[in-house]
């Protein structure tokens, strides 16, 4: 019964959606704003990666909202999983020697790679969200390999709060030096140089710290509980 109703519902949805999708051609430019960003983005923001200039400069306020959504999800996870009573660390079987050594060898390299990704976010493919996810994967590796190690809660909260505060304070400084929130008040420099694009790399580094510590905190909460 439920199955037939669900399949009928999906068929109705599929017919409606395919009728409307047939009107959307594939592979041709559709928005004028995307073309504008590509043509003027490097001149206006100084960042050669147009996706980054859209994320941090043109739609920076939107990104602030998305970072907040991520923050609320991480807080909610902590609130749901934290029991209040401090649980003793369960005795687990230690990882094999290969895994242990491999994790200890790979962890700093993963950290360096993640930092490279978010520091060069305005020049190459990458940015704060991707670099943060890579750093969190490094912490996951540590949890797999060195099972009694735990990340410091205080350091994690500190990195997270500092990242968020840097984002908001730099946005506010735009109000101080100019007219609107998240104004790019620093010199833009020459394109394709590491120190260019004004506030964009600073904000992306802040996002990298924030996302990395939040995802590592999520991993920490889930592993503590299971």
């Amino acid at each position, binding site marked *: 019964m439920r199955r037939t109703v669900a399949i009928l519902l999906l068929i109705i949805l599929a017919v409606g*959606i*395919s009728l409307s999708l047939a009107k959307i051609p594939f592979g041709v430019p559709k928005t004028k704003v995307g073309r504008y960003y590509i043509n003027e983005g490097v001149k206006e923001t100084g960042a050669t990666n147009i*996706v980054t200039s859209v994320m941090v400069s043109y739609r920076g306020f939107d990104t602030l909202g998305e970072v907040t959504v991520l923050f609320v999800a991480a807080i909610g996870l902590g609130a749901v999983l934290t029991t209040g009573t401090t649980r003793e660390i369960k005795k687990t079987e230690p990882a094999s020697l290969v895994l242990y050594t491999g994790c200890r060898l790979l962890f700093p390299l993963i950290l360096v790679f993640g930092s490279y990704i978010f520091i060069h976010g305005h020049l190459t493919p990458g940015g704060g969200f991707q670099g943060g996810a890579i750093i969190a994967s490094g912490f996951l590796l540590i949890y797999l390999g060195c099972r009694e190690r735990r990340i410091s809660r205080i350091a994690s909260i500190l990195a997270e709060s500092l990242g968020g505060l840097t984002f908001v304070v730099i946005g506010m400084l735009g109000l101080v030096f100019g007219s609107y929130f998240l104004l790019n008040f620093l010199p833009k420099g020459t394109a394709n140089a590491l120190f260019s694009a004004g506030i964009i790399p600073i904000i992306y580094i802040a996002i990298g710290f924030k996302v990395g510590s939040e995802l590592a905190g999520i991993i920490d909460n889930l592993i503590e509980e299971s």
Partner: protein
Amino acid sequence: MSFLNSYIYYIGSFGLIFIGLYVILIKHNLIKVIVGLGILDTGVNLFLISVGYITKGTAPIFSRPGIDSEYMVDPVPQALVLTAIVIGVAVLALALSLAIRLYQHYGTLNLRKIREQRW
């Protein structure tokens, strides 16, 4: 074949979305419902990216001076999907944490056996 060539990405992404919706509607195990949510998320991301695609498109990055910007794909959906992926991970983790709590409270993940959830 030209029909397939021009619409295969839409068909694939909505195929993923419908698989996810079907799993969410039919399955009784909460973990399977959450997996369906993840599949749906992937389908939506794929659809947004394929809407912004341009034939023979390249990434919108001026990695060297004088690069041709004629075939660069639309950067706006890419910027949206970039954050949507990370938020999708966080939402999945939140859903899993709720599933852990439900299991500790009811001793089962079957949505039919959880009393308040009967439908």
